[in-house]
C-alpha cells in the first residue's frame, strides 16, 4: 500500500517535472540580430555566431586558433596543389540527409559562383576545382600552392550546406530554412528580434548540454547590461562595454571572461605622400605615441600595445617580438631631425565617428604635437572611409585588421603590393616583403612558414607603414549558472560544451 502510494507520488512528481518544465534554455544577447542564416550571404560576426552553432565545417579552430578536425576526420596533400579530405561516416544533416562529398562540392561551387555574390567567396579564391572522389572523400585543387587552406575552410563562410535543403528552399534559404549538421538545429527566426535553435540529438560530437539557445539582438549597451542584471538573458558572448566591465568583474553575481582579439588596431600611413614616404618620419610617429596610455584611457586597460602587425593569437605571430616601438618622444624628435623634418610637418588623421576611434585620434594628435607634428582630425562615414583609404587618402587613418586567423590573411591583404588600390591602404610596396609573403603562402611546411612570417614581421615593424597601436581584449559576461563558456579570439565561440547549473 505504502509502496504504491510512493510510486504514485514519484510519478506525479515526474509528471510535474516533465521534459517541458526541465527544458534548459540559454538566452544570449548580441549587439545586433542576424542578417541571414545562409553562411554565404553574411559577413557580420553576429550572424556568424549563430551559424557556428548550426553548421559544421570541414575543419574548425580551437580557442587557441589551432586547426582541429570537424567534418573531415583527416586530410593530406598528395602534391602541393591538392587537398584530399576524408569525411566522417554516418553524419546526417538536420533534415536527415547524409553528409556526402557531393554536398561539400555543392557548397564550395555555390560559394565561388559569382551569381551567389557571396562576401566570403574570397576565402576560396585559390581553389580551382572541387572533385568528388567518393561519397566520403573530396579533393580540392588550388591554382597555386596555398598554405592557409585549412584556415579558410574553418571560416563560417565555408560552412557545409545540404544541397537538397538549399535547392528546395530557393530564395527562402537563410531566412525561413537553414539546414546544417552542427549541434543545434535552426528552429525559427523572428526578424529583428531573435533566433531560436534547438538541440540536435544526433550531432556527431555528442548532444549538446543545453536544450535550446535563444539569440537576441539588443543594440543598446545599457539595455543589454540591464537584461543581464535582471536575469532576462544569461550570456553576453562579446562586446561587453569596457566602461562597465571593470564594475562587473568585481560583482559576485556574475562571471566575466576575457581573451585577446584577433584584430590589431593601427593608424595606417599613406606612404605615397610626403613626408610619410620617409621611413624615419614613420618611425618617429611610432615612437611618439604612448600605446599603453591609449590602452588605459580608451580601452580601460582591457588590451595591450601591439607587438607588430599581428595579434599574438594569430597563427604565425612571432612570440619573440617585444613591443613594436616603446614610447620614446626623445628618439622620435631625433629621427625627425635626421629626416630633415626638425620643424615637424602637417598631417591629417581620418577616422569614423565611433567614440573609441575619435578618442584614440585625439590622443595621437596630442602625442604627435609633442614632437612637432601638427595633426588635424577628419571624421568620415565608415564606408566612405573604407573606399577613400582604398584609393589612397593621403594621410593617416585609424582602422583595425582582423584577418583570417592565419598570418597570410593577417598580412597579405593589407600590405602585399598586389593589393594596392584595394585593401593595401598604406599603398606600401616592397619587393622583398612581397617575396616573403608569397613564399609563406605557398609553403606547406608549417614550421618553415613560421620562420618566413617571423622575418616578414621584422621587416614590417622596421618599415612601419602603420603606427602599431593595440590589441583589444574580447569582453564577455554571464550569469553565475553558465558553465564551460569560453570567449574565442575570433569572436565566434561554439556553445556545444556550455551547460547551465542550478
Amino acid at each position, binding site marked *: 500500500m505504502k509502496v504504491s502510494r510512493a510510486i504514485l507520488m514519484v510519478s506525479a512528481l515526474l509528471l510535474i517535472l516533465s521534459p517541458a518544465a526541465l527544458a534548459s534554455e540559454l538566452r544570449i544577447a548580441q549587439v545586433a540580430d542576424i542578417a541571414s542564416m545562409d553562411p554565404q550571404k553574411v559577413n557580420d560576426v553576429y550572424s556568424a555566431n549563430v551559424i557556428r552553432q548550426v553548421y559544421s565545417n570541414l575543419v574548425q579552430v580551437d580557442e587557441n586558433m589551432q586547426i582541429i578536425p570537424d567534418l573531415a576526420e583527416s586530410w593530406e596533400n598528395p602534391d602541393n596543389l591538392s587537398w584530399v579530405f576524408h569525411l566522417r561516416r554516418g553524419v546526417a544533416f538536420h533534415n536527415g540527409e547524409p553528409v556526402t562529398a557531393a554536398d561539400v562540392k555543392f557548397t564550395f561551387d555555390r560559394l565561388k559562383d559569382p551569381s551567389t555574390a557571396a*562576401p566570403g567567396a574570397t576565402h576560396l579564391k585559390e581553389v580551382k576545382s572541387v572533385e568528388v572522389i567518393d561519397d566520403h572523400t573530396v579533393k580540392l585543387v588550388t591554382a597555386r600552392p596555398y598554405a592557409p587552406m585549412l584556415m579558410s575552410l574553418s571560416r563560417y563562410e565555408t560552412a557545409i550546406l545540404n544541397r537538397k535543403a538549399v535547392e528546395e528552399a530557393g530564395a527562402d534559404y537563410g531566412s525561413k530554412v537553414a539546414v546544417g549538421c552542427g549541434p543545434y538545429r535552426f528552429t525559427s527566426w523572428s526578424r529583428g528580434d531573435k533566433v531560436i535553435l534547438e538541440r540536435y540529438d544526433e550531432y556527431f560530437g555528442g548532444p549538446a548540454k543545453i536544450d535550446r539557445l535563444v539569440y537576441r539582438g539588443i*543594440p543598446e549597451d545599457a*539595455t543589454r547590461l540591464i537584461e543581464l542584471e535582471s536575469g*532576462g538573458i544569461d550570456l553576453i558572448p562579446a562586446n561587453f562595454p569596457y566602461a562597465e566591465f571593470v564594475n562587473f568583474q568585481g560583482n559576485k553575481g556574475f562571471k566575466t571572461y576575457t581573451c585577446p582579439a584577433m584584430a590589431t588596431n593601427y593608424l595606417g600611413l599613406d606612404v605615397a605622400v610626403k613626408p610619410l614616404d620617409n621611413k624615419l618620419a614613420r618611425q618617429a610617429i611610432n615612437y611618439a605615441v604612448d600605446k599603453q596610455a591609449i590602452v588605459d584611457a580608451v580601452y580601460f586597460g582591457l588590451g595591450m600595445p601591439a607587438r607588430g602587425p599581428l595579434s599574438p593569437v594569430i597563427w604565425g605571430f612571432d612570440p619573440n617580438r617585444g613591443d613594436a616601438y616603446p614610447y620614446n618622444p626623445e628618439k622620435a624628435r631625433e629621427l625627425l631631425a635626421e629626416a630633415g623634418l626638425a620643424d615637424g610637418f602637417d598631417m591629417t588623421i581620418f577616422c569614423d565617428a565611433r567614440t573609441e576611434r575619435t578618442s584614440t585620434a585625439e590622443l595621437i594628435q596630442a602625442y604627435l604635437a609633442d614632437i612637432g607634428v601638427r595633426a588635424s582630425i577628419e571624421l568620415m562615414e565608415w564606408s566612405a572611409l573604407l573606399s577613400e583609404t582604398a584609393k589612397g587618402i593621403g594621410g593617416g587613418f585609424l582602422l583595425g585588421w582582423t584577418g583570417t586567423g592565419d598570418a597570410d590573411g593577417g598580412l597579405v591583404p593589407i600590405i602585399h603590393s598586389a593589393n594596392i588600390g584595394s585593401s593595401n591602404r598604406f599603398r606600401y610596396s616592397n619587393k622583398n616583403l612581397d617575396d616573403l609573403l608569397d613564399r609563406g603562402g605557398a609553403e606547406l611546411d608549417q614550421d618553415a612558414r613560421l620562420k618566413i612570417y617571423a622575418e616578414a614581421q621584422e621587416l614590417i615593424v622596421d618599415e612601419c607603414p602603420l603606427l602599431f597601436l593595440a590589441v583589444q581584449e574580447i569582453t564577455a559576461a554571464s550569469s553565475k549558472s553558465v558553465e564551460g563558456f569560453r570567449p574565442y579570439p575570433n569572436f565566434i565561440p561554439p556553445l556545444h560544451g556550455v551547460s547551465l547549473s542550478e
Partner: protein
Amino acid sequence: MPMLRYFLRRLLLLIPVLLGVSVVIFSIVHLAPGDPAEVMLGPSATQEDIANLREQLGLNRPLYVQYGAFLGNALRGDLGRSMRSNAPVVEEIMDRFPATLTLAVLGMAFAIGIGLPLGLLAALKQNTWIDALCSFVALAGFSIPNFWIALMLMLLFSIYIPILPSSGIDSWKNLVMPTIVLGVQTMAVIARMTRSSMLEVIRQDYVRTARAKGISDRLVLTRHILSNVMIPVVTIAGLYFGHSLGGVVVTETVFSIPGLGRLIVDAIRSHDYPVVQGGVLFFALCVGVVNLLVDMLYAALDPRIKAQYRAAR
C-alpha cells in the same frame, strides 16, 4: 457625399506627395557617401570583388534607370529585395510593422488618456497647486529626453523592482515602458494644449448661455465645452502621431523592439538601399493616411468645417 469626394481628392493628393518623397529619399540614399558593396564585403575586399558585387546588385546602372526600376516595381507593390538579408522588402516591412503600429497606437492612447484629463484638471483648477502640479508634469514630460526616461524606467522596473522586462516583445509587459517613453512627449503637449484650449472655451458666450439656461455643469462640460476643446487637441494629436513615428526609432532601439524604425536605422547603417527607400516610403504613406484621418475627424467634430466643404463644392 461631399465628405466622400473630399476624402477621395485628398487620397489622390497623396500620390504626388509619395512621388516627391520617393525622389528625395532615392537621391539622399544614393548620393550619400559610401557604398553598399563596400560595406557588405568589408575592409578586405578587392576592387574586383566590389565591382562584381556592384554589378550583381545593379548599382552600375545610371541613377535614373535605377530610379525608374525602383518606381516601376514600387507601383506594382514590389519594393525589391534587401541587400543584406535577400528577403523581399515588403516582407521585411510587414514583419516589423505590427510592432511599430502597436507601439504608436498605445503611445497615442497613453498620451491622450493621461494628457487630456491632466489638461482638463489643470484648467478647472486654474491657479491652484493642482494646476501647478499638472503644468509641472507636462513641462517635465516635454523637456526630459526620452532615452533618459527609458533608462530610468528600466532601472526602476527591471532592476530595483523587477516586474517588467527591459527588452524584446514577448508579452504585454514588454510594452508598458516603451508605451510610456513613446507617449510622454505627446502627453505633455496634449495636456498643455487642452489646458489653454479649455480656458478659452469656458469663457465663451455659448458656455455662459448654456449655464444660464440652467443646464447641469456636467452636461455643459461634456456637450458644450469638451467637443470644442477637442478640436485643437485632435489637430495636435494628429501632428504628433507623425512625430511619434519618428520617436519610435529611439524607443525601439532602447527597448530592442523589432519594429520599422530599427529596421530603417539598421538599413541606413549597412547602406541597404532598398530597405531604406521602402521603409521611408512606407512611413510617409502612414503619416499621410493619419493626417487624412485627422482631417476627417476634424470635420466630424466641427460643424463649421463641414459647412466649408459644402460651400466649396
